């Protein structure tokens, strides 16, 4: 879910109908949502988003050990197998998130 764009049908207040929206995520947070018909964009104030991102990041870091532990119990081999690749991806992932915050 890193700087990821997802498309979903949501109600556009401007078009007053269900339209396709592009949703950009930074980590767990939504950066923006853009109606693909009228291009109306809904987004956080940039400063506000950064404050939320920091709070969210604190929560992600605080809950990481418990989440890893749960995954370990569910599938130890799967976790060990995917761990090196995931760790390699972390710097790029955070860089992508930070870029989204300052875009």
């Amino acid at each position, binding site marked *: 879910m890193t700087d990821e764009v*997802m498309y979903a049908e*949501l*109600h556009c207040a401007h078009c007053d109908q269900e339209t396709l929206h592009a949703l950009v995520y930074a980590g*767990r947070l939504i950066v923006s949502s853009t109606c693909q018909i009228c291009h109306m964009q809904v987004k956080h104030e940039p400063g506000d988003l950064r404050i939320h991102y920091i*709070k969210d990041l604190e929560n992600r870091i605080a809950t990481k050990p418990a989440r890893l532990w749960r995954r370990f119990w569910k599938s130890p081999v799967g976790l060990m197998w995917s761990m090196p690749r995931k760790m390699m991806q972390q710097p790029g992932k955070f860089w992508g998130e930070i870029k989204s915050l300052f875009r």
Partner: protein
Amino acid sequence: MEARTALLEPMRIAVVILAAGSGSRFSSATNKVWLPLGGRRIISRSIANAVKSFPGCRTVLVISPQDALLANQVLEREASDVEVELVEGGETRHDSEYNALIHLAPAITDGRINVVLIHDGARPLATSMLFHDVARTAHQHGGAVPAIVVDPFEIDYKCENQIVRVQTPQAFRASELLSAYQKAHHDKFVGTDTAACMEEYFPENKNIAVAGETQNVKITYPQDLVIAEHVLEMRGYVE
């Protein structure tokens, strides 16, 4: 007298979560219930809230056939400790509810389920307290619908009636609910929501309004996702 008898019986609950949607006109669109919200999919938050309220209850998730693969992946990753039964949705919300009730029919008929809660998968912020309130009220009186009073002047300045905004989860006694949907299916009656179908076939049944929750938003507009994120942050990201 009937209410007192019902109170003596323990509640045996099934929760039906509707996530089939109305079908997309865009092939690239994800059904909104599968969007991420605070690190988990909207639907897995809805499931977690329901299951936390009634551990061990039967949980039915109604999905579109095209979402089956995604549903299995998400449930495996985010709700692997919960036994979720997948049921294919229908053309309308009413059809989806009917399919779920037919799936539960054997257990309802032999009394293993006596209260059914119907919840909209796009409402990921309903609290355990609300789930408990509607279940308890339905068990006691027959039906329960969460509602929030709206200032009628917001809608029409001439309106003098009290207007409420209805939410989910809605709960009903299982046998009456199943019977109402079987009759509706036979008569080709389509209700706007679960309570409407119950009122059509069991007008004597009391559907009690319980206090809804202002934070129990239905994800409809893009800004609802931002509001939901803020609510989750306030709650410390726990359901």
